[in-house]
């Protein structure tokens, strides 16, 4: 794709979860389908993409983070990348806020922002019948899209376009409650405590009796699904990325 000499509109940064995690791969494919549908030309780095370094950095391993970041920046600059979309808020945050200090300056957006743009410009249209209209949905703000970057409205605009029945959790937006995966927690056992963080969050979500918990982050999706499993609710409540909900309704 890179060899074709075309300048794509946007680079889709797939991320480790989007590349390797079976559940997140579905989100990756969903976004690709939507982009094709909307006629957006995009490229991926494929095997030249590396982890952005977010988990290494938050674990404290700055050396490893900077090595990964430096290599990624070399690749991105080599291809003259200007605009990047990610499905992962951690990749989004790192590329947007932390790469500039190392020489990587790009316009970075999260896929919920891109989808909002495509809807408002009319490149995407939600179908009249048979979508998710009136489905009872609760939305989970991820920490890295929400608090870290203040993106609260774009995901909600998508839910509005889908005409779902949105029921907010008590802790939402700035006061959103973590799923438990950030800060490299995804890769280690919890410290001793009385409860898992994802279970606490899922209990809160279940108070709203949703049919769907909508999320915007591959790690949140894993955590919320695990939490539902722990509450024996995996059959009754589904966890979807917003792109998947859009794709179902095109």
């Amino acid at each position, binding site marked *: 794709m890179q060899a074709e000499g075309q300048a794509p509109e946007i680079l889709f940064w*797939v991320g*480790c979860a*989007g*590349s*390797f995690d079976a559940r997140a*791969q579905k989100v*990756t494919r969903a976004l690709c389908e939507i982009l094709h549908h909307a006629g957006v030309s995009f490229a991926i780095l*494929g*095997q030249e*993409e*590396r*982890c952005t*370094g977010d*988990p*290494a*950095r*938050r*674990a*404290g*391993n*700055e*050396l*490893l983070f*900077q*090595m*990964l970041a*430096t*290599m990624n920046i070399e690749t991105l600059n080599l291809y003259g990348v200007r605009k990047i979309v990610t499905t992962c808020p951690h990749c989004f*945050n790192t590329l*947007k*806020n*932390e790469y500039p200090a*190392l020489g990587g300056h790009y316009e970075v957006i999260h896929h919920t922002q891109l989808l909002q743009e495509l809807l408002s410009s009319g490149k995407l249209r939600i179908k009249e019948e048979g979508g998710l209209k009136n489905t009872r949905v609760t939305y989970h703000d991820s*920490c890295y899209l929400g*608090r*870290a*970057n203040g993106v609260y409205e774009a995901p909600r605009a998508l839910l509005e376009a889908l005409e779902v029945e949105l029921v907010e959790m008590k802790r939402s937006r*700035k*006061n959103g*409650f*973590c799923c*438990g995966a*950030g*800060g*490299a*927690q*995804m*890769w*280690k*056992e*919890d*410290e*001793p*405590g*009385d*409860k898992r*963080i994802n*279970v*606490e*969050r899922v209990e809160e979500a279940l108070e709203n009796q949703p049919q769907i918990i909508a999320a915007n982050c591959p790690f949140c999706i894993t955590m919320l699904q695990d939490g539902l499993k722990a509450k024996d609710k995996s059959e009754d409540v589904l966890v979807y990325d917003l792109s998947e909900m859009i794709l179902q309704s095109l």
Partner: protein
Amino acid sequence: MLQQLLFLSVLGLTLGIAYRGYRRVWQNIHLGKPEPFEGNRLERWRNTLLVAFGQQKMFKNWLPALFHLFIYVAFLITQVELIEILIDGITGKHRFFAPYLGGFYTFVINFIEILSVLALVATVVFLARRNLLKVPRFWKPEMRGWPFRDANYILIGEIVLIFGIFTMNSADGVLQTRGVDPYVPTGPLAISQWLGTTFLSTLDTPLLIGIERFGWWLHILTVFSFLCYLPYSKHLHILLAFPSTWYAPLRPKGQMTHMPEVQREVRILMGLEQPEANAPTELPVFGANDVFSLSRGHILQAYACTECGRCTAVCPANITGKKLSPRKIVMAVRDRAEEVGMNLASGKQHLQNYNDGKSLFDYISPEELHACTTCNACVEACPVLINPMEIILQMRRYEILTQGAGPSDWLPLFNALENNGAAWAMSEPRDAWRKN
């Protein structure tokens, strides 16, 4: 004359003690590393005005915010009266401003009286919230002992202060009606006039003068004690919340501090840069293990913390029973700065080769550091822009980069990142998802 002399000596003593206290805090803050100053001043003034003066972030929860506002505004406006008390104390005059300001004086004193009543209500509510309602965030493990007593001392001190003001004003009011010198007319006072006529009007003039003097001295001595006590108390936040807010970093919440010293290492490792010919072979300390490796901003924030625990109350790790409490992290930085400061002041240690065999890790365990999900909830919650998460991350950096320690669970992650450029060690290529 005797009172003037007494006042001057108490004032001198207070200033002496206070100077030592505040100098110690100043020095302890300067144990940290200077931080490069970034961002524009306008935005910093905006933060200070909105967040510190305007208490913007307090109003996320309006009921405690309202009570806090009563005490805060009473505190600010009482400073006006304090100026007069200082002038009266030094010159031996009584209510120096009253003849000059006339009706405006009556207005100001009435304003103070009404705010004092509101502050009294707030203080009683705050005492009840802590001691009777036992709001959970005030009863976390780090609040045992001194922090718990400290909070109550201040609230009780506030009650004493308000008691002093009303004792002084109501006796003064009765004395004014009797035309006793030097009790100049202040105009009718909303609260103390009622107090005076109800409780004091039958008393003899000499006794009333005694009561008035008692109230006056109680008021000013409580203020002086506050001034000396503040540098040892969490209540120092009433002063340091302002500079702490002003100096708070302006970068996005998701952006960790850049480490240029690591960048050099990385570029040399990757062959992008040549090492300097006579570069020191000893590696610098990466991250933070003590107040010396934190920034001055961090220590200033630790001194500006009033231990309200809003951070801990929203911390997902703490809520689910983990040992981590962001407030405790901030308190530990202050405690360690105090300890280091003490050792330096006593001459036991010197700044050049400070080594008391201890560090921040004696206050904060790896278990606490590892429980953080970096969710920024604590940062969002702090009404005065303190960032406990940054301290945690600086200590994680020290653990991994300088000590080569850290949770063993993270080793496979680091290995996968290093060898595969991915967060998991996968045998299939990164774009295999395209084929399924």
